[in-house]
């Protein structure tokens, strides 16, 4: 890692450490949860080239499991978070092993359809509370720290985010990550080189689902509830949008995208009402037509062009 990148990371971390002094911590925690969700999604779309249209179900599923573990079973917070993550990874294994049987657009349709099926199961299952969702989930304590104090929880959420972000970086730059990129670039060639592509795809899918689940589990602890909205296909679309807007296949893209979208929704919710959906759709259309590298990707391209001009 070059020195400049290290400095950028440290700067980002310092900003996040200081953020709750300036911004409402709940909002920052929400951004961090969705940023983690988008990063997990980007691992699949940006680095493996698989467009999953059902990722909300991992977010929502983990949210329910964690909510249930904390509220009904009264487990410690960390165990609850872990339970949600593991459940999402297991669900990811099931959905992933079915979905990787098809490629490209079919993969997207299959994930969407399977996620819709799980959504209906959540709607009917007794432990999710149906339309009402799980409410009043206790935050609990961690090493004697009371997590119902927002600032205490904030640093736990930040630690989870930073740890997961690091894990994703390690994955991308590992030999495993290189093979994922090879699959993205040219799947037949990866097969011809002797890689068991299905196994790699499935592993990437499970990893991505697990991390998306961790995001959902954390979100439940932050907001003290888990609802059907988290598992709805609208949320699956949102995470695609965050990744696309920020820049898919870039390290920071999903973080930027999630920040922009969550802030936008926060600002617009009470001003334009249901037009929010129209605006989200319009951002989608604009991104696809004119802005395919996303904010981070376009900025990097611009930066490289300027450097190139200077050298030339």
């Amino acid at each position: 890692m070059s020195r400049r990148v290290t400095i950028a990371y440290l700067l980002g971390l310092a900003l996040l450490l200081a953020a709750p002094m300036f911004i409402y911590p709940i909002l920052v925690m929400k951004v961090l949860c969705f940023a983690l969700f988008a990063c997990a999604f980007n691992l699949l779309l940006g680095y493996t080239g698989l467009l999953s249209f059902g990722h909300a179900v991992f977010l929502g599923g983990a949210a329910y499991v964690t909510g249930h573990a904390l509220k009904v079973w009264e487990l410690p917070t960390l165990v609850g978070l872990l339970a949600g993550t593991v459940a999402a990874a297991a669900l990811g294994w099931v959905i992933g092993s079915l979905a990787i049987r098809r490629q490209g657009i079919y993969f997207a349709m299959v994930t969407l359809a399977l996620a819709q099926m799980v959504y209906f199961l959540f709607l009917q299952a007794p432990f999710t509370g149906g339309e009402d969702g799980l409410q009043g989930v206790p935050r609990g304590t961690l090493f004697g720290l009371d997590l119902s104090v927002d600032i205490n929880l904030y640093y736990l959420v930040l630690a989870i985010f930073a740890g997961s972000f690091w894990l994703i970086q390690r994955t991308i730059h590992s030999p495993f990550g290189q093979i994922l990129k090879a699959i993205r670039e040219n799947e037949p060639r990866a097969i011809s080189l002797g890689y068991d592509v299905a196994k790699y795809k499935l592993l990437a899918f499970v990893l991505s689902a697990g991390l998306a689940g961790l995001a959902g589990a954390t979100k439940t602890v932050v907001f003290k509830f888990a609802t059907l909205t988290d598992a709805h296909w609208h949320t699956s679309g949102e995470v695609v949008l965050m990744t696309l807007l920020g820049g898919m296949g870039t390290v920071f893209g999903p973080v930027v995208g999630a920040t922009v979208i969550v802030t936008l929704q926060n600002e617009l919710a009470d001003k334009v009402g249901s037009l929010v959906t129209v605006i989200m759709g319009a951002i989608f259309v604009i991104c696809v037509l004119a802005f395919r590298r996303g904010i981070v990707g376009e900025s990097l391209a611009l930066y490289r062009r300027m450097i190139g001009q200077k050298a030339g």
Partner: protein
Amino acid sequence: MTEIFGVPIQALFGQLMLGLVNGSFYAVLSLGLAVIFGMLNIINFAHGALYMTGAMLAWIGLEYLGIGYWWMLVLAPICVGLIGIAIERLMLQWLYKLDHLYGLLLTFGLALMIEGLFRDLYGVAGQPYSIPEEFAGAFNLGFMFLPKYRAWIIVASLTVCLATWYVIEKTRLGAYLRAATENPKLTQAFGINVPLMVMLTYGFGVGLAGFAGVLAAPASQVGPLMGSNLIIVVFAVVVIGGMGSILGSVVTGLGLGIIEGMTKVFWPEASATVVFMIMAVVLMFRPAGLFGREK
């Protein structure tokens, strides 16, 4: 009263009819998706939203302009088709050289925009649309009552599907279309205006969705959300059937509609998920779909 497996025969046939009605919608919608996919290599996520647009146009036509059902059955699909042509010319045509996923993402964005727009204008609640008087009432078949409008939905959908099949498989225009699907460059070299055909194909495909929307208007509540859940089921139908053949889409659509209807009778809790479960099973044993070819 006669019973089969402990279910009154009237309820059984009633659900069978409902299943056929739903299946007709699956058939028309998946047919449109297949036609578009064949030509543009794009999965049209906006299909559900345009189906809803067809239904909303029918309702708006009656509510504000006093245009009746029969006129709207012709006008609304044309309007939706024109919207489709505008979408193709203004946006989709720039994406053909890119990864197919961008087409999916673009049409997803469009679906959100269309749905959000109607929601903003007319609210989430469904509006009633009365059945045209020609089709009020029911046929008495002896063993059951068959509402006339349901019969009409099935007849109209199947006619449209068969007509589409005939045009594509048996006419000169259809031959051009198939040629352009197979090899656009060569077809263009023979002097056929392929971009025009692509444009018309998209317009026609979404026009079918609009037609299905108008058909659905009197059978259910007309509301902005009626398309989005349906389209996900239709995606599953498409995955199950494969998009290789037109008649395959029709058969799969109808068949799944019937299975769904029967599930409502024998195992109501699973009726919302049965199509997805079948999709999972098909993926396990025949990943290319029932009528699909492995590429």
